[in-house]
């Protein structure tokens, strides 16, 4: 299990004159929870946008399972098994919960038009498998009883969970969570905490996390990267990071 799932080298993103991300290195192993922390505006979400293909990085390499991701389109990246959530929940709010789950599995379905028109056996089988997977994940996040409600009508915490379940139904290897605990109450945060750990331990996937809730980050992370102003500051186990004087300075300001 020592082979790297994700290996990011010298990732750089420049917007005109602004250096948003400067030579960031990251690595994630199989079955690992890795966090990126840093003050607001440090470039964490920009790193995510580069990894998931929404931005094309100016420089650097992103190796995922030994394949280069930099330069691929967003949808190609997520098909390789790297899927993300968003800082602001992005659900298909007028569609039902179950439909949200099925849209996510679009590429696993038989999208041949004629197969769909004629309801061929392969079309039905794949449709059923997708349905089963959707039900499985809704049960995992405790949303099955809401399956027929419009996603936009769910409570905020439930929407967050649905977004994670939706990602999981695409059968990823690496899940990128962008501030999943933002706006959750302590109970919901605890539930999220358990969910993330369960994803790693039972479902054997890796998670890359951006989070401001230090309790959550320190509790579950196997490894933490700190970036400030787009530049890597420190990395290590939670305890090491906590004691690093540079990190403390970055968070508390120069004193």
């Amino acid at each position, binding site marked *: 299990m020592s082979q790297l799932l994700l290996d990011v080298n010298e990732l750089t993103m420049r*917007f005109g004159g602004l250096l948003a991300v400067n030579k960031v290195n990251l690595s994630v192993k199989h079955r690992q929870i890795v966090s990126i922390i840093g003050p607001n505006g440090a470039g964490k*979400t920009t790193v995510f*946008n580069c990894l998931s293909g*929404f931005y094309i990085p100016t420089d650097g390499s992103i190796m995922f399972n030994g394949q280069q991701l930099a330069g691929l389109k967003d949808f190609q990246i997520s098909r390789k098994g790297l899927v993300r959530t*968003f800082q602001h929940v992005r659900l298909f709010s007028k569609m039902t919960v179950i439909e949200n789950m099925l849209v996510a599995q679009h590429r696993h379905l038989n999208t041949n038009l004629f197969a769909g028109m004629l309801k061929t056996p392969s079309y039905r089988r794949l449709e059923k498998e997708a349905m089963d997977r959707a039900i499985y994940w809704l049960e995992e996040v405790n949303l099955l009883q809401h399956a027929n409600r419009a996603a936009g009508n769910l409570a905020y915490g439930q929407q967050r969970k649905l977004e994670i379940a939706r990602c999981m139904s695409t059968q990823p290897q690496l899940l990128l969570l962008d501030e999943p605990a933002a706006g959750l109450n302590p109970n919901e945060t605890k539930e999220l905490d358990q969910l993330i750990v369960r994803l790693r331990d039972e479902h054997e996937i890796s998670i890359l996390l951006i989070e401001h809730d230090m309790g959550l980050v320190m509790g579950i992370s196997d490894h933490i990267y700190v970036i400030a102003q787009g530049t890597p500051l420190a990395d290590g186990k939670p305890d090491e990071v906590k004691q690093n004087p540079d990190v403390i300075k970055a968070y508390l300001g120069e004193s």
Partner: protein
Amino acid sequence: MTEASLYLLQQIINGLTIGSTYALIAIGYTMVYGIIGMINFAHGEIYMIGSYVSFIVITGLLAMGSFALPLVLFIALLVAMLIASTYGWTVERVAYRPLRGSNRLIALISAIGMSIFLQNYVALSQGSRDVALAPLISGSVLELGSLETFEVTLSWMQLLIWVVTLVTMTALTLFISRSRMGRACRACAEDLGMTNLLGIDTNRIISLTFVIGAALAAIAGLLLGLYYGVINPFIGFMAGLKAFTAAVLGGIGSIPGAMLGGLILGVTEALTAAYFPSEYKDVVAFGLLVTILLFRPTGILGKPEVEKV
């Protein structure tokens, strides 16, 4: 010079003339797009209305007699700009402003509806047939060379179009770069929401871009009307399409881009018309549009858009 190169020279002169009027219309598209990020579908109709108003004023004043031609043209220009601007302002108020913030598709359909409405409104009030004005400005300024078969000339009308376009573009550039309002325009183009937060009345700026665009389209309406001598209520459609192509070619959102795009398109068209059946010149403009969108959607001078995730 050989006959072929003289012929080419004449086509380029003609192309630059038409191209500079395209540039004038294209600025309206580009300014509006730069600020609200939408295509002003009714812009071609504003140009057409500008043509009609200037024809009406010119004919009316000439019928009264006792006015010098330059004065007549100047008054016609002012009135056409005033009325076309009012139409531009109204289009924004009726078809765009109430829908700001709703789905883009909805605003697009509303704008298309406005365009259809204006076209048929003029067709009903002014008749849908061609209206022809006898040439007012004739003769040529200079002959650049001649052979037995034909001569290469720059006509007074072409010179007028060049001069008016040049003056207008210079004035616009100065306005945008020097004046307070111009600065506010540029700020809006950068970030509309932020500019609003800074206490600038963005509604006024948006109205202003529609008004400026309409005034420039009216100038083009007068010039092209005089140049061709014939107008009808449906000229806005093709002119709009071409000016939009010019705006995209130069890079939509960029004012120098619109000027450059207009000139390139005008010359390309003139050359096509010269060497191929002239009906196909419209097809070429469209082919050019699709080609740019395919290979360089940001145009020649446009900036790439950064998507906000």
